[in-house]
């Protein structure tokens, strides 16, 4: 490897290209530094290297190229003979590729005559073929097709070489005498050439360095260092070519540009070098349109710097990319007649039109795609940087930079009337903002104001220090500083309403989710809930892509937290229980990967999963989430369990909670609580006994509460809730021990106000959870003894069994006759209630409660009228409420038949009755 650089060390190219190479080295990319190192090594290398065998291969490259080309020409000739246009077309493509290589090898401006000759030959043959209409008709369809496309290609191609072709046609012999000879001779010549080559090789092998060296090392399929070297030299050539500013014309810039672009993605093209070349070209561009075109390619090239999906773009490249985008916008703002579009293929020479050209100039490009890509890269970099390092924080600081860009692009697009595209950009902005509470938002705003000034200065200096000044200088027209409204909500509203108006389905759905998340973050539970219910996102979230599903889960989690903060325990629980039912919270929220014992993931899956991870700063604290979920479950489940101690059929509110409780009860010794679960379990044990103070103390000792903004009020609320549930639990558990109980005593026991206690107990009476009534003059609860005697209980059991028997008979009949008993389905509910015996009225009431609940959870299901979000199109935010409608009410009627449980999350509206 080292030897290949031998020549380089000696060549004068080094100095000239060093500017650029240094730049590249500064990028800190390994390959470059490596080569640099090896070059030094070479410079000092002794002559003994010369005899290295590799050189022989290397040296023959130039001739090899020619040889290859000649072979292709032969192939073409053969194809012509049999009139095979398909293979001719292939050969033509091949020869064009080879030409590129040859040009690179010879470093000549002039195209080899061999090539021109082939072109002329081809053209003649083509004309002949076109003229011969009959033959054309006889051709097979694929052949004819190939002929036609060949015709077009050739026409296009020959334009480039028009002069040469004409010259050749005028005087073929002067170029190459043998040209007009027959093929056999041609072949001979080729052989000759081949023959001649050998001595050359031998000579090289013998170790004498001659002037051919430079070309020699251009072996195409060499490894990395090979291309680094090669392009470095090309820089030199560019530089040479454009050394004199006055000589620069649109044509040669364009030509060079085409050349560089054509090299993109090829095996031997250096990604960094391409960036460098394009940067240079961008500076020497003659017209704004050309500059723009080059800029677009430059940005694409910058994206190319990092291959593969897993890694992220180097940060400094990313920054440059953003700057370039801003320049693009500058140009576009200054020259409003330039239109960027990716739909039409513009003319070859569209960019030649100068700045003062009057009509519209079309340039190919897609701003939105660029912005999105930049955002993706930003996201990826945050994903892969370790969040506990300073680097991560530094990286986060770049966010305002992107926000500026997005803002500017959005504004530009809005001005251009491309609202659909603008809404896409707006979504990107929304996605950067939605998870930020007001404090973080303020901090970002401040940061943006501060850092930007510093950045500007830096940029200016950087700009000056760069090589030749640009021909087309554009003043900084678009603002380089983001403007943020005071309030994050205002900003969200602004962006989101734009999206609702113009966005497509997915954009709208995502914006809606972000909107919900943000509302929930600001403790506006009812607004967030209404948005969620009315957008009917729950119904079709299953059909969305994974990323949107994650966003949905995040929104649900945040909504649950929000419900808890405002004191809506039941709602909070229903939001969160779904997340915790599978034990895969981390995956659902994309906040880490949990190991599963039972099935291994394939590497592919793992990679995919890693790619979706949320960056650390966007995480929802899992401990807090778990605490909230378990506490909600506790508050609902403990009185529920107390109320149904002896019914096997008691309904379970939270399976997760029950399971945890079982586990903790099985323990022989319970130590002091350590994690969130232990705390909640300890609190549960206290609560079952009605000891609210202890329960609260245990929960209060959790340190996740410090994450809450309004910690005091939340804990206050929590205490009140715990008291209430403790009272309920106490009453359920100890009813049988009392005949009467005074209100005063209860009030004191649970440290509640008299009104509260009265209200709670009354509620229980009305719902017939508690068989008791007030004795108003004495302020006592009188418990009614409604326990059944043994005989009665048995009788109820008997009736229950009877009804089960009847039902199973019906079912058997049904299966035999194939349905027909429509009635039974509807009746079953009632009969069942009647049949469950033992608790008679109590159960029945439970059931009706159940129905009510289900009905309301049907609310989320939204009956038959699933108004998709799309139908909300064109609604402004205020009106959006109207789009969905509360179709849930329709469902309420059918509630008893509807199964709300298979929904992603069943959200109960309204307070528990």
């Amino acid at each position, binding site marked *: 490897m080292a030897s290949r650089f031998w020549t380089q060390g000696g060549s004068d190219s080094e100095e000239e290209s060093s500017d650029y190479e240094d730049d590249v080295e500064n990028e800190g990319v390994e390959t470059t530094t490596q080569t640099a190192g090896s070059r030094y090594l070479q410079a000092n290398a002794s002559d003994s290297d010369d005899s290295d065998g590799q050189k022989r291969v290397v040296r023959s490259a130039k001739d090899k190229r020619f040889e290859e080309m000649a072979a292709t020409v032969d192939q073409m000739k053969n194809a012509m003979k049999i009139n095979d246009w398909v293979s001719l077309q292939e050969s033509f493509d091949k020869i064009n590729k080879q030409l590129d290589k040859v040009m690179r090898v010879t470093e000549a401006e002039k195209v080899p005559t061999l090539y021109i000759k082939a072109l002329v030959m081809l053209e003649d043959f083509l004309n002949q073929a076109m003229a011969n209409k009959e033959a054309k008709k006889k051709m097979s369809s694929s052949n004819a097709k190939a002929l036609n496309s060949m015709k077009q290609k050739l026409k296009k191609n020959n334009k480039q070489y028009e002069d040469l072709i004409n010259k050749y046609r005028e005087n073929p012999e002067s170029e190459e005498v043998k040209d007009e000879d027959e093929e056999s001779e041609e072949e001979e010549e080729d052989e000759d050439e081949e023959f001649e080559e050998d001595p050359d090789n031998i000579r090289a092998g013998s170790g004498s360095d001659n002037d051919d060296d430079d070309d020699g090392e251009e072996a195409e399929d060499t490894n990395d260092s090979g291309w680094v070297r090669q392009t470095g030299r090309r820089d030199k050539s560019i530089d040479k070519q454009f050394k004199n500013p006055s000589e620069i014309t649109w044509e040669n810039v364009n030509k060079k540009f085409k050349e560089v672009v054509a090299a993109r993605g090829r095996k031997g093209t250096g990604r960094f070098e391409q960036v460098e070349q394009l940067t240079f070209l961008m500076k020497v561009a003659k017209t704004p349109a050309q500059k723009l075109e080059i800029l677009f390619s430059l940005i694409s090239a910058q994206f190319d710097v990092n291959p593969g999906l897993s890694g992220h773009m180097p940060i400094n490249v990313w920054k440059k990319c953003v700057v370039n985008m801003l320049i693009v916008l500058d140009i576009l703002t200054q020259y409003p007649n330039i239109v960027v579009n990716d739909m039409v293929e513009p003319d070859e020479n569209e960019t030649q039109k100068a700045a003062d050209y009057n009509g519209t100039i079309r340039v190919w490009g897609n701003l939105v795609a660029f912005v999105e890509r930049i955002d993706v890269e930003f996201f990826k970099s945050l994903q892969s940087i370790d969040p506990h390092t300073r680097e991560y924080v530094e990286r986060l600081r770049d966010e305002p930079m992107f926000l500026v860009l997005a803002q500017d692009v959005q504004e530009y697009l809005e001005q251009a009337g491309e609202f659909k595209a603008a809404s896409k950009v707006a979504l990107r902005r929304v996605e950067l903002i939605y998870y930020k509470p007001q404090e973080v938002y303020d901090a970002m705003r401040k940061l943006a104001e501060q850092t930007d000034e510093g950045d500007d200065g830096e940029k200016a200096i950087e700009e000056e220090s760069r090589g030749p000044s640009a021909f087309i200088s554009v003043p900084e027209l678009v603002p380089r500083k983001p403007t943020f409204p005071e309030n994050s909500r205002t900003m969200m509203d602004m962006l989101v309403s734009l999206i609702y108006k113009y966005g497509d389905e997915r954009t709208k759905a995502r914006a809606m989710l972000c909107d919900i998340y943000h509302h929930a973050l600001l403790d506006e539970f*009812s607004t967030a809930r209404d948005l969620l219910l*009315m957008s009917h996102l729950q119904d079709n979230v299953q059909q969305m892509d994974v990323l949107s599903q994650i966003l949905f889960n995040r929104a649900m989690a945040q909504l649950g937290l929000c419900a808890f903060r405002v004191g809506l325990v039941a709602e909070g629980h229903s939001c969160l229980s779904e997340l915790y039912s599978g034990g895969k919270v981390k995956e659902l929220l994309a906040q880490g990967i949990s190991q599963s014992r039972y099935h291994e993931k394939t590497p592919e899956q793992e990679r995919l999963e890693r790619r979706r991870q949320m960056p650390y700063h966007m995480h929802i604290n899992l401990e807090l989430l778990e605490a909230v979920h378990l506490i909600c479950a506790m508050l609902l489940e403990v009185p529920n369990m107390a109320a149904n101690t002896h019914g096997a059929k008691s309904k379970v509110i939270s399976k997760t909670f029950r399971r945890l409780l079982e586990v903790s009860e099985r323990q022989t010794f319970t130590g002091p609580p350590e994690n969130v679960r232990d705390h909640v379990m300890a609190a549960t044990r206290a609560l079952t006994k009605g000891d609210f103070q202890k329960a609260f103390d245990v929960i209060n000792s959790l340190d996740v509460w410090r994450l809450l903004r309004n910690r005091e009020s939340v804990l206050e609320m929590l205490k009140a809730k715990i008291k209430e549930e403790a009272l309920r639990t106490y009453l359920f558990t100890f009813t049988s021990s009392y005949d009467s109980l005074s209100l005063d005593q209860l009030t004191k026991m649970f440290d509640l106000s008299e*009104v509260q206690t*009265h*209200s709670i107990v*009354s*509620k229980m*009476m*009305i719902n017939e959870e508690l*068989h008791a*009534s*007030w*004795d*108003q*003059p*004495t302020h006592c609860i*009188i418990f*009614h003894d*409604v326990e*059944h005697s043994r005989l*009665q209980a048995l*009788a*109820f059991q008997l*009736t*229950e069994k*009877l*009804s089960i028997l*009847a039902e199973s*008979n*019906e079912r058997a*009949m049904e299966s035999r*006759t194939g349905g027909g*008993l429509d009635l*039974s389905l509807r*009746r079953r509910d009632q*009969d069942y209630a*009647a*049949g469950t*015996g033992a608790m*008679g*009225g109590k159960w029945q009431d439970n059931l009706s409660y159940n129905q*009510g609940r289900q009905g309301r959870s049907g609310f989320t299901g939204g009956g038959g009228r699933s*108004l998709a979000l799309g*139908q909300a199109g*064109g*609604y402004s935010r205020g*009106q959006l*409420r*109207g*789009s969905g*409608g*509360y*179709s849930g*009410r*329709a469902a*309420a009627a059918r509630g008893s038949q509807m199964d709300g449980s298979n929904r992603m999350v069943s959200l109960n*509206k*309204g*307070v528990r*009755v």
Partner: protein
Amino acid sequence: MATYDLTQRIAPNLDRHLVFPLLEFLQERQMYPDEQILKSKIELLNKTNMVDYAMDIHKSLYHTEDVPQDMVERRVEVVARLKALEERAAPIVSFLQNPNSFQDLRANDQHYNLQMLHDRYQIEALYQYAKFQFECGNYSGAADYLYQYRALCTNSERRLSALWGKMAAEILMQNWDIALEELNQLKEKVDDPKSFTSPLNQMQSRIWLMHWSLFIFFNHDNGRTLIIDLFNQDKYLNAIQTNAPHLLRYLATAFIVNKRRRPQFKDFIKVIQQEQNSYKDPITEFLACVYVNYDFDGAQKKMKECEEVILNDPFLGKRVEDSNFATVPLRDEFLENARLFIFETYCRIHQRIDMAVLAEKLNLNYEEAQRWIVNLIRNSKLDAKIDAKSGTVIMEPTHPNVYEQLIDHTKGLSGRTYKLVGQLLEHAQTQAAR
């Protein structure tokens, strides 16, 4: 006093002309300074053609005799335009008034008839004329013309707006029966999914319809039942919840006044609970107190506030002049029923109640309370006894008899078995027949 005034929220959903009665009412109740109301009246009138009226108001507002120039000019303009429209509409009007003209119509060729009417008499002019009449405040004329127009017109959109116009005119003329008919027609149109392109438009129309219907329902004899029928429909309730939660007040009042609506009432309580954060006033809060929080003291306080609200509401506080003595019938009814609501719930959870406390809770004195309860017991609405010695009411426990329960449970079984056997036999027969 004005905190619970809904005029500002209702007015945007009404026709200009329909806002007048509301303003009149406000003026009468002295809720806002007179000047303010007069000013808003003028503003209202500026967009209508009732220039004379506006002039009068202007005079009384500024206590002057001269009117601004633009009003005078406008008057001239209006009169001229009225003339022009009248002329244009003259042929069709005379055509319609002349019974002989029916001879021109061909009995079996509807298409021809329409074409002829359109060409010769210009139905369109009739519509414009009617609209202008309405704008000028000549509601009866407008109503007549619109009625005729509707019979002749083929354009469905125009028909719809004619329908709205007719209803407004009838409301303003206080022909409640006819207005109710119009309302029902309009409701059919509004519920027809074909007549609207977007659900949003449809919802908006529903909201308008509900607002306009308030005039009818609270004046028509049967209105209080009808309002529940209309508002409590799912589609309409959705509309209320989404865009006009203030209408809950009227629905709540109707529910309270109407005793026979229990099943729907429970659902409605849930709605009120849901909408607590988007709308509340004493009436909905009263319901929440009684049925959600069981806070009877709170309910009692709210009841007093409710009275205020009812008196100051243009729809609810309608006065009936009885010789020289004005009453608000709805208020009395409301209070009576609200009291009943409280008492009912209260009794459900109590075994023994002190009469004095009860009297206080019901906003009655002791004697009245006793009479009231005795009446209830006598009408067998209440299963209780009064213990006069200790001054308490004692509720009879209402636990279902165990044996009754058992019988209930098994009652259905035999029927089911019979049915099963019947089906089995039927099945067997069909099988045998095959």
